[in-house]
Protein backbone atom coordinates (compact mmCIF):
# COMPACT_ATOMS: atom_id res chain seq x y z
CA UNK A 1 0.00 0.00 0.00
CA UNK A 2 1.42 3.40 -0.97
CA UNK A 3 1.85 6.17 1.60
CA UNK A 4 -0.86 8.24 -0.09
CA UNK A 5 -3.36 5.37 -0.08
CA UNK A 6 -2.56 4.72 3.59
CA UNK A 7 -3.25 8.33 4.52
CA UNK A 8 -6.46 8.48 2.45
CA UNK A 9 -7.82 5.34 4.13
CA UNK A 10 -6.81 6.73 7.54
CA UNK A 11 -8.61 10.00 6.72
CA UNK A 12 -11.79 7.99 6.14
CA UNK A 13 -11.38 5.79 9.23
CA UNK A 14 -13.50 7.95 11.54
CA UNK A 15 -16.25 8.74 9.06
CA UNK A 16 -17.11 9.64 5.46
CA UNK A 17 -15.41 12.66 3.87
CA UNK A 18 -15.64 14.49 0.54
CA UNK A 19 -12.67 15.10 -1.77
CA UNK A 20 -11.37 18.34 -0.33
CA UNK A 21 -12.14 17.12 3.20
CA UNK A 22 -9.79 14.19 2.57
CA UNK A 23 -7.07 16.54 1.28
CA UNK A 24 -7.30 18.61 4.49
CA UNK A 25 -7.41 15.58 6.77
CA UNK A 26 -4.41 13.96 5.08
CA UNK A 27 -2.42 17.20 5.46
CA UNK A 28 -3.33 17.29 9.16
CA UNK A 29 -2.64 13.59 9.76
CA UNK A 30 0.76 13.85 8.11
CA UNK A 31 1.54 17.12 9.88
CA UNK A 32 1.76 18.88 6.55
CA UNK A 33 4.17 16.41 4.94
CA UNK A 34 1.61 15.03 2.47
CA UNK A 35 -0.29 17.68 0.51
CA UNK A 36 -2.35 15.85 -2.07
CA UNK A 37 -3.09 17.53 -5.38
CA UNK A 38 -6.57 16.84 -6.74
CA UNK A 39 -5.22 14.76 -9.65
CA UNK A 40 -3.23 12.60 -7.23
CA UNK A 41 -6.16 12.28 -4.81
CA UNK A 42 -8.55 11.04 -7.48
CA UNK A 43 -5.90 8.67 -8.82
CA UNK A 44 -5.77 7.14 -5.33
CA UNK A 45 -9.56 7.21 -4.83
CA UNK A 46 -10.17 5.54 -8.17
CA UNK A 47 -7.68 2.78 -7.35
CA UNK A 48 -9.08 2.26 -3.84
CA UNK A 49 -12.64 2.15 -5.21
CA UNK A 50 -11.57 -0.37 -7.88
CA UNK A 51 -10.02 -2.54 -5.14
CA UNK A 52 -13.24 -2.33 -3.13
CA UNK A 53 -11.60 -0.56 -0.18
CA UNK A 54 -13.80 2.58 -0.34
CA UNK A 55 -17.26 3.36 -1.71
CA UNK A 56 -19.46 6.42 -2.23
CA UNK A 57 -21.45 7.35 0.88
CA UNK A 58 -23.73 10.27 -0.07
CA UNK A 59 -23.89 13.50 -2.04
CA UNK A 60 -24.48 16.96 -0.57
CA UNK A 61 -24.96 20.32 -2.27
CA UNK A 62 -22.61 23.03 -1.05
CA UNK A 63 -22.48 26.54 -2.60
CA UNK A 64 -24.01 25.19 -5.78
CA UNK A 65 -21.50 22.31 -6.02
CA UNK A 66 -22.20 18.68 -5.42
CA UNK A 67 -19.86 17.12 -2.87
CA UNK A 68 -19.60 13.34 -2.98
CA UNK A 69 -18.62 11.68 0.30
CA UNK A 70 -16.64 8.45 0.49
CA UNK A 71 -16.46 5.88 3.24
CA UNK A 72 -14.38 2.83 4.05
CA UNK A 73 -15.80 -0.55 3.17
CA UNK A 74 -15.36 -3.48 5.55
CA UNK A 75 -12.51 -4.67 3.35
CA UNK A 76 -10.97 -1.20 3.47
CA UNK A 77 -11.13 -1.16 7.26
CA UNK A 78 -9.43 -4.57 7.39
CA UNK A 79 -6.75 -3.55 4.88
CA UNK A 80 -6.04 -0.36 6.84
CA UNK A 81 -5.78 -2.24 10.15
CA UNK A 82 -3.44 -4.77 8.56
CA UNK A 83 -1.26 -2.02 7.06
CA UNK A 84 -1.18 -0.11 10.35
CA UNK A 85 -0.05 -3.25 12.17
CA UNK A 86 2.63 -3.89 9.56
CA UNK A 87 3.92 -0.33 9.81
CA UNK A 88 3.85 -0.41 13.61
CA UNK A 89 5.80 -3.70 13.64
CA UNK A 90 8.36 -2.23 11.24
CA UNK A 91 8.64 0.90 13.39
CA UNK A 92 9.19 -1.26 16.50
CA UNK A 93 12.05 -3.11 14.77
CA UNK A 94 13.63 0.16 13.64
CA UNK A 95 13.36 1.71 17.08
CA UNK A 96 14.86 -1.38 18.67
CA UNK A 97 17.79 -1.32 16.25
CA UNK A 98 18.36 2.34 16.95
CA UNK A 99 18.31 1.61 20.67
CA UNK A 100 15.16 3.69 21.15
CA UNK A 101 12.92 0.90 22.44
CA UNK A 102 13.81 1.54 26.07
CA UNK A 103 13.27 5.27 25.67
CA UNK A 104 9.78 4.60 24.31
CA UNK A 105 8.89 2.30 27.23
CA UNK A 106 10.23 4.84 29.73
CA UNK A 107 8.42 7.73 28.02
Amino acid at each position, binding site marked *: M*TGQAFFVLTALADGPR*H*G*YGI*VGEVAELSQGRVRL*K*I*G*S*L*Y*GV*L*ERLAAEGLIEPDREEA*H*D*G*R*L*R*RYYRLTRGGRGALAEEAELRAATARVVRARLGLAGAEAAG
Partner: protein
Amino acid sequence: MSGDLERRYRRVLRLLPRWYRQRWEQDMVAAFLDGWLTGDPETDAYISRAAGPGWAEVASVAGLAARLYLGGAGTPRRYAWGQAVRRAVLTVVLMHAVLGLDVLVFLVWSRRLVGWLPAAPGSLVVAPAGVWDTMYYLVCVAWIAIFVSLALRHYRTARALAALAIVPGLVALVQAQVTGMMPAPFGSWVFWVLLALGPVLAMTAFNRDAPPIARRPWLLALPAGYLLVYGPLLALQATGNSAWVPDFAGLCCILVSLACLAHAPRAWSRQADGTGRWSLTLVLLAAVAGANRIVTLTSYVHDRHLIAVSLAELLIMLAAAALVAPDAARAQTAAPAPPHPSAAAV
Protein backbone atom coordinates in the same frame (compact mmCIF):
# COMPACT_ATOMS: atom_id res chain seq x y z
CA MET B 1 -19.16 32.88 -9.28
CA SER B 2 -16.58 30.19 -9.93
CA GLY B 3 -17.04 30.33 -13.73
CA ASP B 4 -13.56 31.27 -14.98
CA LEU B 5 -11.65 29.21 -12.45
CA GLU B 6 -13.88 26.21 -13.08
CA ARG B 7 -13.50 26.60 -16.84
CA ARG B 8 -9.70 26.69 -16.54
CA TYR B 9 -9.66 23.56 -14.41
CA ARG B 10 -12.06 21.72 -16.71
CA ARG B 11 -9.73 22.56 -19.58
CA VAL B 12 -6.90 20.78 -17.71
CA LEU B 13 -9.17 17.82 -17.03
CA ARG B 14 -9.56 17.30 -20.77
CA LEU B 15 -6.19 15.54 -20.53
CA LEU B 16 -8.04 12.63 -18.92
CA PRO B 17 -9.81 9.90 -20.90
CA ARG B 18 -13.48 10.54 -21.56
CA TRP B 19 -14.67 7.47 -19.63
CA TYR B 20 -12.76 8.67 -16.58
CA ARG B 21 -14.14 12.20 -16.82
CA GLN B 22 -17.69 10.89 -17.01
CA ARG B 23 -17.15 9.15 -13.69
CA TRP B 24 -14.96 11.61 -11.77
CA GLU B 25 -14.96 15.09 -13.35
CA GLN B 26 -17.74 16.63 -11.25
CA ASP B 27 -16.09 15.35 -8.11
CA MET B 28 -12.68 16.66 -9.07
CA VAL B 29 -14.04 20.08 -10.01
CA ALA B 30 -15.92 20.33 -6.70
CA ALA B 31 -12.83 19.34 -4.70
CA PHE B 32 -10.64 21.76 -6.65
CA LEU B 33 -13.05 24.67 -6.14
CA ASP B 34 -13.41 23.81 -2.46
CA GLY B 35 -9.68 24.43 -2.17
CA TRP B 36 -9.94 27.90 -3.64
CA LEU B 37 -13.30 29.48 -2.87
CA THR B 38 -14.06 31.08 0.48
CA GLY B 39 -17.85 31.59 0.39
CA ASP B 40 -17.45 35.37 0.33
CA PRO B 41 -18.90 36.53 -3.03
CA GLU B 42 -16.50 39.46 -3.50
CA THR B 43 -13.36 37.46 -2.68
CA ASP B 44 -14.54 34.52 -4.76
CA ALA B 45 -15.23 36.72 -7.76
CA TYR B 46 -11.67 38.02 -7.56
CA ILE B 47 -10.20 34.53 -7.09
CA SER B 48 -12.21 33.21 -9.99
CA ARG B 49 -10.81 35.92 -12.28
CA ALA B 50 -7.21 35.78 -11.07
CA ALA B 51 -6.50 32.21 -10.00
CA GLY B 52 -5.96 29.02 -11.93
CA PRO B 53 -4.60 25.52 -11.49
CA GLY B 54 -0.88 25.71 -10.68
CA TRP B 55 1.79 23.63 -12.41
CA ALA B 56 1.78 21.03 -9.61
CA GLU B 57 -1.98 20.59 -10.04
CA VAL B 58 -1.62 20.31 -13.82
CA ALA B 59 1.26 17.84 -13.35
CA SER B 60 -0.88 15.67 -11.05
CA VAL B 61 -3.66 15.53 -13.67
CA ALA B 62 -1.12 14.83 -16.44
CA GLY B 63 0.39 12.03 -14.34
CA LEU B 64 -3.05 10.55 -13.76
CA ALA B 65 -3.80 10.80 -17.50
CA ALA B 66 -0.55 9.01 -18.38
CA ARG B 67 -1.38 6.23 -15.91
CA LEU B 68 -4.90 5.85 -17.28
CA TYR B 69 -3.92 5.94 -20.96
CA LEU B 70 -0.84 3.74 -20.62
CA GLY B 71 -1.77 1.59 -17.64
CA GLY B 72 -2.02 -2.16 -17.63
CA ALA B 73 -5.74 -2.69 -17.41
CA GLY B 74 -8.58 -1.47 -19.58
CA THR B 75 -9.63 -1.88 -23.19
CA PRO B 76 -7.48 -3.93 -25.60
CA ARG B 77 -6.56 -0.74 -27.44
CA ARG B 78 -5.25 1.01 -24.30
CA TYR B 79 -3.49 -2.12 -23.13
CA ALA B 80 -1.80 -2.63 -26.52
CA TRP B 81 -0.62 0.99 -26.69
CA GLY B 82 0.61 0.90 -23.10
CA GLN B 83 2.64 -2.24 -23.78
CA ALA B 84 3.97 -0.89 -27.07
CA VAL B 85 5.07 2.40 -25.49
CA ARG B 86 6.77 0.60 -22.60
CA ARG B 87 8.64 -1.72 -24.96
CA ALA B 88 9.59 1.15 -27.27
CA VAL B 89 10.92 3.14 -24.30
CA LEU B 90 12.87 0.12 -23.07
CA THR B 91 14.34 -0.34 -26.54
CA VAL B 92 15.40 3.31 -26.83
CA VAL B 93 16.91 3.22 -23.32
CA LEU B 94 18.63 -0.04 -24.29
CA MET B 95 20.11 1.78 -27.29
CA HIS B 96 21.46 4.50 -24.99
CA ALA B 97 22.84 1.83 -22.66
CA VAL B 98 24.57 0.04 -25.55
CA LEU B 99 26.14 3.37 -26.56
CA GLY B 100 27.15 3.82 -22.90
CA LEU B 101 28.71 0.38 -22.85
CA ASP B 102 30.65 1.27 -25.98
CA VAL B 103 31.91 4.46 -24.31
CA LEU B 104 32.88 2.44 -21.24
CA VAL B 105 34.80 -0.12 -23.33
CA PHE B 106 36.44 2.72 -25.24
CA LEU B 107 37.53 4.46 -22.02
CA VAL B 108 38.79 1.28 -20.38
CA TRP B 109 40.74 0.27 -23.47
CA SER B 110 42.10 3.62 -24.62
CA ARG B 111 43.24 4.63 -21.13
CA ARG B 112 44.75 1.24 -20.29
CA LEU B 113 42.55 0.93 -17.19
CA VAL B 114 42.88 -2.85 -17.34
CA GLY B 115 46.54 -3.80 -17.31
CA TRP B 116 46.35 -7.12 -19.17
CA LEU B 117 44.53 -5.72 -22.21
CA PRO B 118 46.71 -5.14 -25.28
CA ALA B 119 47.40 -1.52 -26.14
CA ALA B 120 44.58 0.19 -28.04
CA PRO B 121 45.12 1.23 -31.66
CA GLY B 122 46.42 4.78 -32.05
CA SER B 123 43.06 5.95 -33.40
CA LEU B 124 41.42 5.07 -30.09
CA VAL B 125 43.88 6.90 -27.84
CA VAL B 126 42.53 10.32 -26.97
CA ALA B 127 43.89 13.36 -25.22
CA PRO B 128 42.66 14.05 -21.67
CA ALA B 129 39.04 15.18 -21.92
CA GLY B 130 37.68 18.58 -20.94
CA VAL B 131 34.67 19.20 -18.70
CA TRP B 132 32.12 18.72 -21.48
CA ASP B 133 33.72 15.49 -22.72
CA THR B 134 33.80 14.18 -19.16
CA MET B 135 30.15 15.13 -18.77
CA TYR B 136 29.34 13.37 -22.04
CA TYR B 137 31.07 10.17 -20.89
CA LEU B 138 29.29 10.33 -17.55
CA VAL B 139 25.90 10.75 -19.21
CA CYS B 140 26.59 7.86 -21.59
CA VAL B 141 27.55 5.57 -18.73
CA ALA B 142 24.58 6.78 -16.64
CA TRP B 143 22.23 5.35 -19.30
CA ILE B 144 23.51 1.87 -18.38
CA ALA B 145 22.34 2.49 -14.80
CA ILE B 146 19.02 3.88 -16.09
CA PHE B 147 18.42 0.83 -18.25
CA VAL B 148 19.31 -1.59 -15.47
CA SER B 149 17.07 0.30 -13.00
CA LEU B 150 14.19 0.13 -15.47
CA ALA B 151 14.73 -3.57 -16.19
CA LEU B 152 14.89 -4.29 -12.44
CA ARG B 153 11.60 -2.37 -12.01
CA HIS B 154 13.10 0.49 -9.99
CA TYR B 155 10.98 2.91 -12.00
CA ARG B 156 11.39 5.98 -9.80
CA THR B 157 15.17 5.65 -9.76
CA ALA B 158 15.22 5.18 -13.53
CA ARG B 159 12.99 8.21 -14.08
CA ALA B 160 15.02 10.43 -11.73
CA LEU B 161 18.36 9.39 -13.27
CA ALA B 162 17.02 9.80 -16.80
CA ALA B 163 15.64 13.26 -16.03
CA LEU B 164 19.12 14.24 -14.81
CA ALA B 165 20.89 12.53 -17.72
CA ILE B 166 19.15 14.59 -20.39
CA VAL B 167 20.00 17.95 -18.77
CA PRO B 168 23.65 18.25 -19.92
CA GLY B 169 22.55 17.60 -23.53
CA LEU B 170 19.95 20.36 -23.25
CA VAL B 171 22.46 22.79 -21.75
CA ALA B 172 24.97 22.01 -24.51
CA LEU B 173 22.30 22.51 -27.19
CA VAL B 174 21.16 25.82 -25.71
CA GLN B 175 24.78 26.97 -25.48
CA ALA B 176 25.31 25.96 -29.11
CA GLN B 177 22.18 27.89 -30.05
CA VAL B 178 23.46 31.01 -28.29
CA THR B 179 27.16 30.87 -29.17
CA GLY B 180 26.93 29.02 -32.48
CA MET B 181 29.40 26.39 -31.24
CA MET B 182 28.57 22.96 -29.86
CA PRO B 183 30.67 22.55 -26.70
CA ALA B 184 30.47 18.78 -26.52
CA PRO B 185 29.83 15.67 -28.60
CA PHE B 186 26.13 15.67 -27.68
CA GLY B 187 23.58 15.16 -30.44
CA SER B 188 21.24 17.54 -32.20
CA TRP B 189 17.89 18.96 -31.09
CA VAL B 190 16.16 16.19 -33.01
CA PHE B 191 18.18 13.55 -31.22
CA TRP B 192 17.50 15.20 -27.87
CA VAL B 193 13.74 15.57 -28.38
CA LEU B 194 13.11 12.19 -30.05
CA LEU B 195 15.55 9.97 -28.21
CA ALA B 196 16.11 11.69 -24.86
CA LEU B 197 13.18 13.89 -23.81
CA GLY B 198 10.50 11.73 -25.47
CA PRO B 199 11.51 8.46 -23.79
CA VAL B 200 11.95 10.19 -20.43
CA LEU B 201 8.41 11.60 -20.62
CA ALA B 202 7.10 8.25 -21.82
CA MET B 203 8.62 6.59 -18.77
CA THR B 204 5.39 7.59 -16.99
CA ALA B 205 4.00 4.48 -18.71
CA PHE B 206 5.96 2.44 -16.17
CA ASN B 207 3.67 2.56 -13.18
CA ARG B 208 2.01 0.32 -10.63
CA ASP B 209 -0.78 -0.63 -13.01
CA ALA B 210 1.56 -1.74 -15.76
CA PRO B 211 2.52 -5.40 -16.24
CA PRO B 212 5.96 -6.13 -14.78
CA ILE B 213 9.01 -6.12 -17.01
CA ALA B 214 10.52 -9.49 -17.90
CA ARG B 215 13.85 -8.86 -16.18
CA ARG B 216 16.08 -11.57 -17.61
CA PRO B 217 15.56 -11.12 -21.37
CA TRP B 218 15.91 -7.35 -21.13
CA LEU B 219 19.04 -7.53 -18.98
CA LEU B 220 20.56 -10.05 -21.41
CA ALA B 221 19.68 -7.72 -24.28
CA LEU B 222 22.35 -5.26 -23.11
CA PRO B 223 25.47 -7.40 -23.72
CA ALA B 224 23.76 -9.12 -26.67
CA GLY B 225 22.86 -5.76 -28.23
CA TYR B 226 26.42 -4.53 -27.76
CA LEU B 227 27.91 -7.57 -29.47
CA LEU B 228 25.33 -7.64 -32.27
CA VAL B 229 25.66 -3.93 -33.08
CA TYR B 230 29.30 -3.21 -32.43
CA GLY B 231 30.67 -6.56 -33.60
CA PRO B 232 29.73 -5.97 -37.26
CA LEU B 233 30.66 -2.28 -37.04
CA LEU B 234 34.12 -3.10 -35.68
CA ALA B 235 34.54 -5.79 -38.33
CA LEU B 236 33.72 -3.27 -41.05
CA GLN B 237 36.25 -0.82 -39.65
CA ALA B 238 38.93 -3.46 -39.06
CA THR B 239 38.65 -4.71 -42.66
CA GLY B 240 39.04 -1.21 -44.06
CA ASN B 241 35.39 -0.87 -45.03
CA SER B 242 34.61 2.17 -42.90
CA ALA B 243 32.70 3.72 -45.79
CA TRP B 244 30.00 1.09 -45.21
CA VAL B 245 29.51 2.12 -41.59
CA PRO B 246 26.16 3.95 -41.49
CA ASP B 247 25.58 7.14 -39.54
CA PHE B 248 23.55 6.88 -36.33
CA ALA B 249 20.18 7.64 -37.97
CA GLY B 250 20.93 5.08 -40.68
CA LEU B 251 21.98 2.50 -38.12
CA CYS B 252 18.65 2.94 -36.31
CA CYS B 253 16.76 2.44 -39.60
CA ILE B 254 18.75 -0.71 -40.37
CA LEU B 255 18.20 -2.16 -36.90
CA VAL B 256 14.45 -1.48 -36.96
CA SER B 257 14.25 -2.97 -40.47
CA LEU B 258 16.03 -6.13 -39.32
CA ALA B 259 13.77 -6.41 -36.26
CA CYS B 260 10.65 -6.02 -38.46
CA LEU B 261 11.90 -8.67 -40.90
CA ALA B 262 12.71 -11.05 -38.04
CA HIS B 263 9.27 -10.52 -36.48
CA ALA B 264 7.26 -10.60 -39.72
CA PRO B 265 6.84 -14.43 -39.93
CA ARG B 266 5.31 -14.48 -36.42
CA ALA B 267 3.18 -11.44 -37.21
CA TRP B 268 1.76 -13.21 -40.26
CA SER B 269 1.25 -16.50 -38.48
CA ARG B 270 -2.32 -16.81 -37.26
CA GLN B 271 -1.27 -19.31 -34.59
CA ALA B 272 1.10 -16.92 -32.81
CA ASP B 273 -0.62 -15.17 -29.93
CA GLY B 274 0.13 -11.72 -28.58
CA THR B 275 2.50 -10.78 -31.42
CA GLY B 276 0.51 -7.66 -32.24
CA ARG B 277 1.88 -5.67 -29.34
CA TRP B 278 5.44 -6.32 -30.54
CA SER B 279 4.33 -5.31 -34.04
CA LEU B 280 2.91 -2.08 -32.62
CA THR B 281 6.20 -1.51 -30.77
CA LEU B 282 8.15 -1.92 -34.01
CA VAL B 283 5.83 0.47 -35.84
CA LEU B 284 6.38 3.03 -33.07
CA LEU B 285 10.15 2.57 -33.27
CA ALA B 286 10.01 2.85 -37.06
CA ALA B 287 8.15 6.16 -36.69
CA VAL B 288 10.84 7.51 -34.34
CA ALA B 289 13.74 6.23 -36.47
CA GLY B 290 12.03 7.52 -39.63
CA ALA B 291 11.51 11.00 -38.17
CA ASN B 292 15.15 11.06 -37.07
CA ARG B 293 16.28 9.95 -40.55
CA ILE B 294 14.16 12.53 -42.37
CA VAL B 295 15.37 15.43 -40.23
CA THR B 296 19.02 14.39 -40.43
CA LEU B 297 18.77 14.36 -44.25
CA THR B 298 19.31 18.12 -44.07
CA SER B 299 22.96 17.46 -43.09
CA TYR B 300 23.57 15.90 -46.50
CA VAL B 301 21.95 18.41 -48.82
CA HIS B 302 25.24 18.88 -50.67
CA ASP B 303 25.98 15.18 -51.05
CA ARG B 304 23.63 13.42 -53.48
CA HIS B 305 25.18 10.03 -52.76
CA LEU B 306 24.51 10.25 -49.01
CA ILE B 307 21.01 11.56 -49.66
CA ALA B 308 20.34 8.54 -51.88
CA VAL B 309 21.73 6.13 -49.25
CA SER B 310 19.69 7.79 -46.47
CA LEU B 311 16.50 7.65 -48.54
CA ALA B 312 17.16 3.99 -49.32
CA GLU B 313 17.54 3.27 -45.58
CA LEU B 314 14.28 5.08 -44.94
CA LEU B 315 12.35 3.32 -47.69
CA ILE B 316 13.65 -0.13 -46.73
CA MET B 317 12.57 0.50 -43.13
CA LEU B 318 9.12 1.69 -44.21
CA ALA B 319 8.69 -1.42 -46.36
CA ALA B 320 9.78 -3.64 -43.46
CA ALA B 321 7.44 -1.83 -41.04
CA ALA B 322 4.59 -2.26 -43.54
CA LEU B 323 4.99 -6.03 -43.15
CA VAL B 324 4.07 -5.88 -39.45
CA ALA B 325 1.64 -2.94 -39.62
CA PRO B 326 -1.52 -5.07 -40.21
CA ASP B 327 -0.68 -7.15 -37.13
CA ALA B 328 -0.11 -3.93 -35.15
CA ALA B 329 -3.56 -2.72 -36.19
CA ARG B 330 -5.16 -6.02 -35.14
CA ALA B 331 -3.53 -5.76 -31.68
CA GLN B 332 -5.67 -2.73 -30.89
CA THR B 333 -8.96 -4.47 -31.46
CA ALA B 334 -8.61 -8.21 -31.21
CA ALA B 335 -6.12 -8.87 -28.43
CA PRO B 336 -7.78 -9.46 -25.10
CA ALA B 337 -6.46 -7.45 -22.15
CA PRO B 338 -5.23 -9.72 -19.37
CA PRO B 339 -7.45 -9.79 -16.29
CA HIS B 340 -4.64 -8.64 -13.99
CA PRO B 341 -1.63 -6.44 -14.71
CA SER B 342 0.79 -9.15 -13.58
CA ALA B 343 -0.64 -11.57 -16.14
CA ALA B 344 1.70 -10.56 -18.95
CA ALA B 345 5.22 -9.26 -18.69
CA VAL B 346 6.53 -6.45 -20.93
